[in-house]
């Protein structure tokens, strides 16, 4: 029954958002105006495309995030069996965290965590 329910909730979200948008499409006004389909820039006509270069800092944080996110995927099953395994698990996670902390310390030292 569980997997059907997962699909059910997906469909519910689809019905809620899709249904309301389709319903709204039939009752909303349809009036075309060239200025309405411009990107909003406080009234000034927009210049150039917005798909351009942006701060590399976002990319750096995404890279560091990736390291820690994969770590969390590994660490969740460990947390679940910690009680059964006992002390060996504790030693292993200390080694694991030591390596991780090295990574964070390296990023810190290289000023990757500093926003510029």
């Amino acid at each position: 029954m569980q997997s059907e329910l997962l699909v059910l909730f997906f469909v519910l979200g689809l019905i809620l958002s899709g249904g309301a948008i389709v319903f709204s499409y039939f009752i909303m006004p349809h009036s075309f105006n060239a200025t309405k389909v411009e990107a909003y820039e406080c009234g000034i006509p927009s210049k150039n495309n917005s798909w351009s270069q942006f701060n590399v800092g976002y990319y750096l944080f995404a890279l560091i995030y990736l390291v820690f996110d994969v770590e969390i995927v590994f660490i969740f099953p460990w947390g679940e069996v910690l009680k059964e395994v006992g002390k060996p698990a504790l030693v292993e996670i200390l080694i694991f965290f030591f390596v991780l902390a090295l990574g964070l310390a390296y990023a810190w030292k290289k000023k990757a965590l500093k926003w510029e």
Partner: protein
Amino acid sequence: MYDFSQLTQAIHLFLVQHLNSSSVAIVELVLVGLLFLTMYAILGLTLVYMERKVCAFIQNRLGPNRVGPLGLLQTVADLIKLLFKELLMVKKADKFLFNLAPFIVVIASMMTIGALPFAKGFQAIDLNIGLFYIISITSLGVLGILLAGWSSNSKYSLLGALRSGAQIISYELSVSLSLLSIIMFTGSMQLSVIVESQANGWWIFKGHIPVFISFLIFLIASTAETNRGPFDIAEAESELTAGFHTEYSGIKFAFFFLAEYMNMFLSAALAATVFLGGWMPFHVSGFEGLNQVMDFIPPIVWFFGKTFTLIYVIMLFKWTFPRLRVDQLLTLEWKYLLPINLVNTIVIAFVVVMGWYF
């Protein structure tokens, strides 16, 4: 007492008597669907109303009080107004992604609501990896936000989306690590098992100071993850107009708004379930009289009481603290919360292995 599984069993038996097996399954799915759809809508409207009233209370105003008794129908009226608004799209936008983004946001919040244990026997999806499922689905929500900002082809939207993306992925680490502390204590990711394990006391009391620290980290990080003030640089009105949903209008805008409130509800409900005992009443071992009185209050009241108390706290954050800058925000996560959380995780692992908890 107050067991919802008896009610669901009764409905199931009634349907089995009157219908054949395949239509029973369909009718049950439709019933569950209708129940959760109604709950989703009512919770969303309630939260928007509550936000306005709390905001008004703090700013010494009255808040909505014209439409309906105490202004209760104000949010319904606003929703109807938004339904009648024209759905605009920027001419240069990526049309497919622009339309896809609100769907992703709503579906992600909808799929997580189903996995919450509202009361005994009142939980649609009880997966054995429940907590992990919730974390993974909520992190899908950021996709919707990034797509919305990128596809709009507007400068404000792009900036808002990038800020929001950096913020959400950063704070997601703290959210997951602080939830891990309770997984270590219970040895299970199943939400019903986690709630059952708190029958003799909530984890925030049983787990000593380390769990209290992870509760605080969870509260801060989940406030940031839901893009709420003081961490709302993604849609800082004074500098970015409306952030990633600048170009959305009408009901599509309403969905971003609704999903944000539902995510706030979700994080408060998750904190209540994992740290504050979910629907478990407040018990103190040794005081039988008190425990009897506490048992008399239905579990669903306990659950929503705890959740809405936490939501009230999160709303107070928004209306009392000034907004953080983007560098302060990232410093807070990467230089404070994450190292503290890593050390805290090791301390908790030590406590669990040594058995130093109640």
